[in-house]
């Protein structure tokens, strides 16, 4: 879900960065009020914990060979409260960008909003609104699941929206959106299950670490999971049908946009873009592509004449830059040999 720079235009990137910085400034001020200096080390280490927790993978059922890990935003928001949780996850996203180069520098604003601010606050709010009236194991289940799925979905939905605002999408918006929703629904479900299980474990050993305690008993029981899943299916089905009626059908929309391609329907009907890619490679190499035949010879000749000169300049450009880089590299190498190497 880390966005890269290339998915954004400069105005959108600047706007989201400004929003993220303002948001972080606000959150920092709130956290300063709540938290004393002896909690600072705790927040830092919980950030490191999120990194480590992402290395602990779990095998998925029904799909042997695939495994997933938790994201941790909602769990931290439940444990630390939303403000501190948002700061911790934001710092994780920043470190992922700066040290591990996951997500671009300009996209940092988007990533902070999508993965830290929105999931922390939305997740905490949902969890609280379910568990606050009466605290029970079932409510913790439903609350944590609801928080994980909806919070992660909300962040995931923002990705195509931001990309569409930037106007860089070649992929139809609805296809991208549906793919993101589908994939992150699964991610959210697993995240919810792990969050509930970890909360259950904490409840047994250290119920005091959670910011407003875990009274009662939180257990991973089959009945609770089943009821949760049923509640979920209803909520999601209702949500999806609302979404579907509000938007033009993705299939029809992209089909109508391209009347010149009758085979477009079969491509769009598959959600996964990798499958789409494979599909298209197959059809491309098995059939004679028709666009090369379409152009007439006369047109081609004219086109070539125009393009040849442009071709030479771009050739010169690329070769020139390659030569420059080689020159820099060689010079540096020669100069370096003269110096005694250290370390």
């Amino acid at each position, binding site marked *: 879900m*880390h966005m*890269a*720079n290339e998915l954004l235009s*400069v105005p959108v*990137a600047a706007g989201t960065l400004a929003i993220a910085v303002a948001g972080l400034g606000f959150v*920092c001020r709130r956290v*300063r009020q709540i938290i004393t*200096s002896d909690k*600072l*080390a705790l927040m*830092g*280490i*919980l950030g*490191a*914990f999120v*990194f*480590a*927790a992402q290395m*602990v993978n*779990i095998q998925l*059922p029904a799909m*042997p060979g695939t495994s997933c890990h938790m994201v941790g935003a909602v769990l931290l928001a439940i444990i630390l409260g939303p403000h501190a949780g948002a*700061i*911790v996850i934001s*710092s994780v996203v920043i470190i992922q960008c*700066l*040290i591990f*180069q996951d997500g*671009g*520098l300009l996209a940092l604003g988007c990533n902070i909003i999508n993965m830290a601010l929105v999931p922390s606050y939305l997740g905490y709010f949902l969890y609280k609104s379910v568990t606050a009236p009466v605290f029970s194991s079932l409510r913790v289940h439903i609350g944590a699941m609801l928080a994980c799925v909806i919070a992660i979905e909300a962040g995931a939905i923002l990705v195509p929206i931001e990309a569409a605002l930037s106007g860089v999408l*070649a*992929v*139809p918006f609805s296809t991208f959106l549906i793919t993101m929703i589908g994939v992150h629904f699964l991610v959210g479900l697993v995240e919810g299950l*792990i969050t509930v*299980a*970890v909360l*259950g474990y*904490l409840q047994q*050993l250290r119920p005091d670490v959670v910011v407003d305690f875990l009274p009662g008993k939180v257990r*991973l029981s089959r009945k609770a999971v089943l009821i949760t899943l049923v509640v979920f299916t209803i909520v999601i089905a209702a949500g999806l049908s609302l979404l579907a009626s509000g938007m033009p059908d993705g299939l029809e929309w992209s089909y109508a946009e391209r009347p010149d391609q009758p085979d477009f329907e079969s491509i769009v009907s598959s959600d996964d*873009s990798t499958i*789409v*890619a494979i599909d298209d490679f197959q059809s491309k190499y098995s059939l004679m592509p028709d*666009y*090369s035949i*379409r*152009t007439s010879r006369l047109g081609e000749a004219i*086109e*070539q004449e125009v*393009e040849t000169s442009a*071709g*030479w300049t*771009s*050739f010169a*450009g*690329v070769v020139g830059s390659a030569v*420059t*880089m080689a020159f820099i590299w060689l010079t540096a190498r020669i100069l*370096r040999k003269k110096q005694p190497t*250290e370390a």
Partner: protein
Amino acid sequence: MHHAYIDKFAYQDSPVHRLDSRVKFIVVLVFTAVVISLPRTSPGILAWYAVGPFTILVLGRIPLRFAFKHILMVSPFVLVLALSCPLYDKTPVTVAFGPFFWQTLLGWMRCFTILGKFIVTMLALIALVSTTRFSDLLTGLQKLGLPKLLIIQLGFLYRYIFVIIDRAHHILRARAGRKLRNLGFKVELKTTAAMLGSLLIRSLDTAEHINIAMQARGFNGSWRTISKLQIRCTDYIFAIVAASFLLALHFFVRPVLQ
């Protein structure tokens, strides 16, 4: 510690390493913005923009293999998006490159531009991070106006990432040693939850110990470093060179290559 530090090259010494972190950060930010705002269908021009980060990497003695390995590791998401471009943008175009020219789709040009931009901006980011110590970068960011709380948070996080990851490795190895087959989702979930829970509790204990140690040494919520940032003559030269590089590309190379 069994794993190499991911930013081990930041602790080398070179003219680039000695530059002020603020100047480097701003230059990289501007460079990224300029590269992103380039037109979307002409990959050729990106080769010239790559010269900038390339030079810094070479001057900073960062092995290029390290940089490209890193880029490859973080590329899957972008790769999927880039490869789906040719499926949706099927306007035929003729590409000419030196003596060769061939017919292709506009989508492919977009695909290569996205990949090219990704590589160039990632090179710039790697050039920044692997020539700047993280603590210097944080001090620079604080001087640039980031909230102090966030800086402290980032400092702690960076310091303890590798410690806690080491522990996670121990736990993972223990699981791998005991678990010889797939145990079914429910047991797997329980095991994972126990692993995460115990990791969390150990992290909390560690945090408490660290807090006590830091209180004993007089930590009161502010961060003091001995590294003094100051903008020197070389920093001005670097900023001017970078600016003239970008301006020259903008005014002389871009009109020719498009």
